[in-house]
């Protein structure tokens, strides 16, 4: 038992290191151009719109996370190697403070803004997307699994003993009962993504003069994102305190 635990944790750790090295490589490779000053902002609106793409992507990642949690928790036995592997990964990735993700995202973003000469986003954009996915997905998986697990076994047992199929147990009992918890988890993840996006947006204003920033509505969008993040996390604590 304990041996396999160690194996799974080490695999998870190795993945983490590989991901870290990947980002480090990207950053190192773009830092050579850091000496340049942001001059014109002709390309930046493009960057700006890409930034907004990160939010729908986070939303998709959250939905995928929920689906993944359902699969792990409801379809695979706790001893399944795949389930244990993913759970170890999730434990490690949710253990990283979101500040570090934020810094990572900013680092990549700044590297791009300072270094780019406007030939598109390329690999850095994917790195940014990956950061956001890694930011929200493990959290969603973890909270959804916890919500599913919180539906007491006696409820499942009694439905099964009456002859319900797994689908019926899930759709009639488990999902309605776990729903607030699942939603709370999604909100928490979304709030994380929004906060990170706001951070990027804040950084982004560096490239603008005060006047252009105001006319481009950067400040207001920045505030909007922050407020949204705040709202989501408030909603999250509300759901947590009022399980129905």
């Amino acid at each position, binding site marked *: 038992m304990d041996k396999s635990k160690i194996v799974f944790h080490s695999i998870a750790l190795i993945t983490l290191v590989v991901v870290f090295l990947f980002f480090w490589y990207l950053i190192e490779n773009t830092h050579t151009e850091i000496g340049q000053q942001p001059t014109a902002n002709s390309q930046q609106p493009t960057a700006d719109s890409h930034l907004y793409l990160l939010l729908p992507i986070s939303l998709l990642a959250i939905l995928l996370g929920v689906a993944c949690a359902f699969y792990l928790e409801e379809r695979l*036995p706790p*001893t399944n190697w795949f389930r244990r592997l993913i759970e170890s990964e999730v434990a490690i990735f949710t253990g990283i403070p979101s500040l570090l993700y934020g810094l990572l995202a900013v680092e990549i973003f700044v590297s791009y803004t300072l270094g780019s000469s406007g030939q598109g986003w390329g690999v850095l954009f994917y790195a940014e997307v990956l950061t956001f996915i890694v930011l929200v997905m493990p959290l969603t998986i973890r909270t959804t699994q916890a919500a599913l697990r919180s539906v007491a076994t*006696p409820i499942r047992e009694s439905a*099964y*003993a*009456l*002859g*319900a*199929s797994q689908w019926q147990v899930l759709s009639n*009992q488990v999902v309605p009962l776990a729903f607030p918890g699942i939603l709370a988890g999604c909100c928490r993840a979304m709030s994380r993504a929004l906060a990170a996006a706001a951070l990027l947006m804040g950084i982004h204003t560096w490239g603008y003069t005060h006047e252009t920033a105001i006319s481009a509505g950067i400040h207001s969008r920045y505030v909007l994102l922050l407020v949204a993040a705040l709202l989501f996390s408030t909603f999250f604590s509300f759901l947590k305190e009022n399980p129905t």
Partner: protein
Amino acid sequence: MAAKNYNIETENLNLWYGDFQALIDVNVKILAGEITSLIGPSGCGKSTLLRCFNRVNERYGNVTTKGKIQVLGKNIYDADVSLPELRKTVGMVFQRPNPLPISVYENILFGLRIHSPLRSLTRAESDAIVEEALTSVFLWDALKDKLKVRATSLQLEQQQKLCIARLLPLKPQIILMDEPCSALDAKGTLAVEELMSYLAGTYTFLIVTHNMAQARRVSSECIFMFLGELIEHRNTQALFETPHNSKTADYVQMRYA
């Protein structure tokens, strides 16, 4: 003597959780329409045996079952046996009352709803079914104005009776009970026992209990198990008064002292 009618028969039933053997060569025949009690020290496999008969053990994942189990003359491991049908015929009541966290009314109908196509019941039909089921467990008068109340907010005794009532619309033949009274007070225990005696005949009951007095009061047949083996299965009175096996004698006496 007239040929006896058995509802459950096992042949060399063996069961393992991983590599721990919880049931060893169990051969048992459960009389139709009677109340049979299952007694024995903690961990001897009473619950395990009970859970074999509606195949809920399988949910634990690491379970291996060998041997034959016949319920109503049909091998329940045959390929053509449908689990929902089996569990409809063989109802189960648990140690802790576990009504679903929905209304009393919906609890009673839950079984029917999962076994029949959507909306096949009219309002009048469902009302009649709920009334009949609650009346059979002596709950109708107490609950007829509380049908919309969440079942989990009832008193424990009522919850447990409700758990029996919700089996009835499915027209089960066998009702398995795993220490159904251990969460109830003395009054609730007596009420459930009365209910069982009243329903016996229509249904075959198999009840696990740690309460010897209860086994004597309520059951006509009694099975003593020890470390996964079936030691003795006889008429309740005979088993308690003139146990054949010394282990049975020890257990029964210790429990009584």
